[in-house]
């Protein structure tokens, strides 16, 4: 899952320094437009939908991985 998230973030933002501890805003300096683009790419890749209210709870890469695990989203 980490590798897929890294790939999506790189494709959308060009940022490559991504680890499980990376914070989207603090470390990558992404703004809302970037985050929403990543969400769309993630949803396309996994053929799923992330409710908007949930998007803003996902601050770090580890949050996305845990969210995917809880929702049964798998590679």
């Amino acid at each position, binding site marked *: 899952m980490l590798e897929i998230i890294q790939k999506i973030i790189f494709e*959308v933002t060009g940022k490559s320094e991504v680890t499980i501890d990376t914070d989207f805003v603090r470390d990558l*300096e992404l*703004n*809302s*437009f970037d985050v*929403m*683009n990543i*969400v*769309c*790419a993630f*949803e*396309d890749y996994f053929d799923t939908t992330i409710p*908007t*209210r949930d*998007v*803003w709870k996902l601050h770090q890469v580890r949050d996305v991985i845990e969210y995917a695990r809880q929702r049964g989203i798998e590679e």
Partner: protein
Amino acid sequence: MAAVTIYWYGPERPASRRCLVRCAALFAGEPLAGAEERWPVQESEKGKPFFPLSPETHCSVTHSGDYWLGAFSSEPIGIDLQIHKPGRLAALSRRFFHPEEDRYLQAFGFSDFYRVWAAKESFVKFSGEGISGNFGRFSVAGPQGILSRVDGLQLRFVPFRCDYTLCVCAKEISSVQLVPGK
């Protein structure tokens, strides 16, 4: 009426919190020295910064591309800057915008996408609510184009750099001044 001063920094700038504090001092006409002690910053639950020692000073911050901007006024305000860069514009519009906005953008080939985006972000930053839940529930566009007022709030686009869209939201905007940060 909100007289808005927008301070901007380019890529060579201090950290966001430091920018904000320096701008607060500039807005108050104070020296920069000691600004961090005089202007402690807190954030609301949704992340909107405010100055607990100066509740009459309102601010809103945005960053995109190479720029960081902080808007200041004696009235509540929201601001958003967005660089024009490739993205899944049609998917974002369909997924996150109000159906009225999506219809408008589809009709005109998404040429106004960034104006809709910046207008919506400035609107939710005004309230401090952020994008968390309300983003798709209101429309800043009608069949004829982008609205200048939404729910009693004024939206004003401010020329900045080419390839960027900048929008300010307040109850009533009397003036907008762009000033380089120090």
